[in-house]
């Protein structure tokens, strides 16, 4: 096991994780860089339930390419098939060229994307907490996935349900609302050529 980092959640629970896992969070990374005698980083705004879920995500992503921010640029070192033996120079161009043609890289990325989508197929409340935690801890991939999870969760909702969820006031007059829904009635109506 490599170097580990100790994290303390808001409700006092201690989590010990590998550096590679914890450093998915840019905040934790910068806090750890400072001279911390006992390597214990307090995270008062994240409670243990959420932190454990966040760390589950980080564990999965620790040794994987950042699929959501730079899909195509998978360095060949991370290719499961080639196992570190890069075919050529590891410039960013050859990396994206590698992942374009390497079936193993493509499959690995697809699998990770699937795992991520399942990870955020959860209660909207949990997604909300993950969003805030990802924002607070600055974990780009988790932020990306939590946003996508939230969007997926609300995409089926009608405007009234969305208003209730985000606690928004309907500031349209009934006539205006009717106009808007008419403007977008094609979303639901069958096509009459």
């Amino acid at each position: 096991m490599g170097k580990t980092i100790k994290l303390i959640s808001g409700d006092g629970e201690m989590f010990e994780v590998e550096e590679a896992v914890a450093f998915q969070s840019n905040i934790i990374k910068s806090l750890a860089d400072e001279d911390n005698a006992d390597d214990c980083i307090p995270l008062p705004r994240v409670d243990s339930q959420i932190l454990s879920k966040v760390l589950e995500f980080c564990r999965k992503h620790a040794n994987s390419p950042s699929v959501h921010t730079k899909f195509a640029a998978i360095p060949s070192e991370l290719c499961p098939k080639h196992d570190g033996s890069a075919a050529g120079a590891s410039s960013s161009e050859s990396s994206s060229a590698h992942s374009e043609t390497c079936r193993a890289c493509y499959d690995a990325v697809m699998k990770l994307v699937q795992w991520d989508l399942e990870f955020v197929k959860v209660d909207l409340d949990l997604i909300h907490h993950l969003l805030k935690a990802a924002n607070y801890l600055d974990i780009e991939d988790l932020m990306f996935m939590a946003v996508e999870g939230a969007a997926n969760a609300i995409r089926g909702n009608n405007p009234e349900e969305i208003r209730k969820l985000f606690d928004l006031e309907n500031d349209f007059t009934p006539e205006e609302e009717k106009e808007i829904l008419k403007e977008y009635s094609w979303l639901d109506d069958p096509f009459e050529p």
Partner: protein
Amino acid sequence: MEEAFTISITTAGAAGTGAGAGASSSSSASSSASVITVVNMDPRIWRHLPQGMVDRVLAFLPPDAFFRARAVCKRWYSLVFSDSFLELHLRLAPALPCFVFFLLPSTTASSSAPSDASSAAIAAASSSSSRPPPPPALLLDPVADSWHRIPLDAVIPPGFSPAASSHGVLCFISDDAGSKTLVLCNLLSKLAAHLPPSPTPRLFPTVGLAVGPSSICTVLAGDDMISPFAVKNLTAECFHADGVTGFYSPWATGSALPRLCSFEPGRMAYAASAGRFYGMSCGPFGVLSYDVASNAWEKIQPPMRRFLRSPSIAECGGGRVVLVAAVEKSKLSVPRSVRVWSLQPCGRAWSELDRMPHDVHSRFCDAEAGRGFECVGHGDFLVITMRASHDVLLFHVRRKEWRWAPPCPFLRGPGGVIGTLRGFAYVPRLATPCMALLDSSSFMPPVGFDG
């Protein structure tokens, strides 16, 4: 409402919020099915989400959900006009590689221009000011296997036909012979911008379009009208504007086409990595390639040239150029097939990528019945449409999987008029900033086209 409540982590999608995201009961997900109790939390927590984060969620919504969400409140309605939101959307919204189809009437299946009958009908209708709305564009999401409608309403003026596409921009070309006008459209934001008319009079030229966040490059090739009654494939013109470098060349770049080429009127595919447009020429078949930077054309010999039927050129993700065609040898011992070839990095040789498996091919033959077919590519997918058929065939380039798209729910079933679907690569994008490069006076609401 501040009592303790339970968050249950499941893999089957949200329970209490009416979410309809098609959750699958996957058994391979590693999320645990444990129940976690959290105390003292305000259930009405989404209201506390910072506005920026709400905007990010909205930017992720697929187009139909986004438009539904516009009815929520005035702020959300106006986001589509907010530069900061559009920039967020441009950056964040997952680029769904989709296809948009236009239904061409069956009488015009042989060309990209509407027949005299339909133009006359449109003219007659507009004179009585009760013009029927144009049929909507049909959007296919090959990953979700779903169809959506995008109304065209007042976006496209009459007398224009779809010609090319690039990212979220669709290009329409004026139907009338002569100097051609191209209109770039964003179907979602309903913005249209006209290019200045092209100098050389043409009949049914082939169009290529390549846009970037701040650049437009479009090529118009072939069908030069050397007299009111005769066309020849002589020249091509290029319109090139780049907001970053300040380069602006409105149809000033001309080039000569190779001798003895005859474009199938249609679109050209663009490979960004090579900076080239590719199009199909017939009689004999050849692939024409235009290099934007050097303003030069070259001819590439296709594979099995004498045995091809209905070839088309398409571009898939990563700048891969493919040729799709039916192979029919006169010798009966060679079975007919439909094959996909990929252009090699050298730019001259082809290698076979795949061919239709037997069951797919036999259904394809029944649907196509020798009438001809077209192919267009986007991302990992190739899409094949057949003349006078509403069937759509998908080919996943990496997985080498063939499958039929679900029937489009917006097209009439059997018994109605069967037209031809012409497909274009499309990314539903709210923000297409390149259109701002065109003269702002061209952003006019489309009026009746008096031709």
